[in-house]
């Protein structure tokens, strides 16, 4: 399925007839639309998801199609959006809750951590929370404060969730379909920076990309770049630059952070002997640390150099003027790759 990720080339081979060239935002919308047609238990709720079609238009047209009982504009209350979803999910619905920006998830953390992630455990499997929490995350769109955060590490340290981050339109649709059909709560982080950055052939019919499977987005021999979400594109760009220096970089797109596809990641590192992990979240306590630990636990003897992390700084996500200073760039990734190669 995968090929090189260079600009203009499709990451996924899809017959043109059954496909449309879509952005991530459109693919997300169509995944929900298809699942709502397929399963009447699927409902959408959140702030501005109805009449407005979502601030990123990710729910555009759903209320016209399915009505206000299935596409619910909620009061401005994140804890209610998640708390009510817990009640809905435990009694037979499959809610897709939208948190408008991941930076606004904090009021709902109690409901997510104390209830959604635990309902199955606390009822020994009698009740569960088959719900999806869609959260546009990450920087790069020059927004006001609190609109750029990447909080995946918080959720990865909380057992009970699955955490999914697509990096392209094809995966966005297929992974969201799997998330909606999953019987456990899934946090679905959408890279808002590339919501509309590029188009890709996406099958019209819904299809599932399985959760828990990473993909090699570009094959290489010398160093493995590990990323997810918006950072995958930046890694693919860096790989192009490295190729001009005769460095062959492999890019692993994790796609699902929990459960993590350790095998794909470790196989790649065993092959290349070198790894750079890239994420937008601050470095300390970020998921890169966990990946580095797992590589050391499972491929220590194959490593030619210590694992490097290219991450956000341990600072508040800066205001728009400085966000470029903060975000991992192609240049930083290239430099880190050169460093592990020179070790």
């Amino acid at each position: 399925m995968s090929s090189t990720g260079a600009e203009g080339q499709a990451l996924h081979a899809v017959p043109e007839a059954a496909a449309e060239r879509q952005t991530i935002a459109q693919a997300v919308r169509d995944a929900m639309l298809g699942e709502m047609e397929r399963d009447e238990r699927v409902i959408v709720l959140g702030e501005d998801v109805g009449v407005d079609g979502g601030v990123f238009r990710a729910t555009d047209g759903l209320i016209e199609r399915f009505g206000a009982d299935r596409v619910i504009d909620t009061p401005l209350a994140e804890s209610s959006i998640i708390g009510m979803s817990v009640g809905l999910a435990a009694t037979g619905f499959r809610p897709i809750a939208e948190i408008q920006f991941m930076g606004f998830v904090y009021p709902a953390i109690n409901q997510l951590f104390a209830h959604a992630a635990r309902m199955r455990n606390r009822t020994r499997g009698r009740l569960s929370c088959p719900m999806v929490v869609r959260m546009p995350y990450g920087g790069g769109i020059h927004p006001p404060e609190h609109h750029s955060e990447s909080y995946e590490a918080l959720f990865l340290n909380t057992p009970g969730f699955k955490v999914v981050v697509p990096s392209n339109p094809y995966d966005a649709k297929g992974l969201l379909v799997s998330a909606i059909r999953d019987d456990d709560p899934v946090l679905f982080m959408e890279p808002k920076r590339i919501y509309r950055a590029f188009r890709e052939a996406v099958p019209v019919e819904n299809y599932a990309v399985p959760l828990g499977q990473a993909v090699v987005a570009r094959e290489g021999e010398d160093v493995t770049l590990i990323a997810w979400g918006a950072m995958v594109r930046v890694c693919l760009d860096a790989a192009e630059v490295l190729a001009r220096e005769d460095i062959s970089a492999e890019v692993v797109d994790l796609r699902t952070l929990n459960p993590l596809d350790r095998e794909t990641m470790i196989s790649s590192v065993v092959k290349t002997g070198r790894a750079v992990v890239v994420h937008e979240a601050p470095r300390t306590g970020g998921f890169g640390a966990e990946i580095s630990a797992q590589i050391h636990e499972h491929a220590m003897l194959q490593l030619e150099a210590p694992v490097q992390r290219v991450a956000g700084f341990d600072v508040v996500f800066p205001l728009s003027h400085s966000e470029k200073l903060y975000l991992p760039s192609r240049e930083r990734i290239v430099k880190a790759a050169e460093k592990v190669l020179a070790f």
Partner: protein
Amino acid sequence: MPRTRVYEAVTERLEILDTEGRVDEALMPEIDPSRIRDLYRDMVLMRTFDDKALKLQRQGRMGTWPPIKGQEAVQAGVALAMGENDWLIPTFREHGVMVLRGVPLHLVYAYWAGDERGSCYPEDVRCFPVAVPVGSQWQHGAGVGLSLKLRGEDAVAVTFGGDGSTSEGDFHEAVNCATVFDAKTVFVIQNNQWAISVPLHRQTAAETLAQKAHAYGLPGIQVDGNDVFAVYMAATEAIERARRGDGPSLIEAVTYRLGDHTTADDASRYRSEDELEKWEAQDPILRLGHFMEHQGLWDEDQEKVLREEAHDWVEAQVKVLEEMPPQAHEEIFTSMYAAMPPHVAEQMGELVEEMQS
């Protein structure tokens, strides 16, 4: 540009049964005498199993236990008003109503004794698990009520919480959202006057908790929570209203926590003997007992038989609890996900191996 009144509101309080066991005949709901005896039996059972849990805790056979002593009328009255298919969304001080709704007592005991299997209620019992984070359960009540409305199901969601939880944002969000959506939800506040050591007047400057309903546009009523008839009547009205699809209601049941917050608390540090004595005189079980005696529904022999039955039933449940085989080590892993992910299976394997070595 006049200054006008745009909204005025009155909050009612309902009392039917006084401490001497006399009722206001005009307000007294129609309840079959056998149901009245059932109510009394239910309340005595609650008092008995609550008392037993405290004894078990002192003997080291029970973990931390939050007592319900003094709050039996709220729980029995609401339980009687609930229909077969209604959902209960409890907090950690609703063992009474949970048991009346079908959660086996030995499982309630098991949960508080620290056994994971205590959360495994029978399939047909429509009851959420105990919610410990204060106030969070109000949101689930709103969500279940919305779920029942959207599905057109002939059932309502009854959710409980304490006076302290009305200070949490979740209370306000949940009541607001449920009302906006006409959810089939009934919110029952057990106002037992104390949130651990903090008295009601430090939770709110409002005269009542019931009046908070006005701000969200739903009916709110205060009842004497130690008067089982008033509780039953208010709960019946609220549940019927929700069932009809007319939206949620808020009930403030004014009662008193006669025990400590939990077995880890000592209430004498923050409240007076006088206050406790005043409320002991309001005991909901004594009150109903007096009423039944006046009505010729009850005598000393029946009382003696009931107390023995209650004792025997609770002892039998303790026996079931203590005869449960030990919990398997794997139990902490098995209910995390619908299908166990590889890393969890790997960690489970590590523990099993460790325990075998």
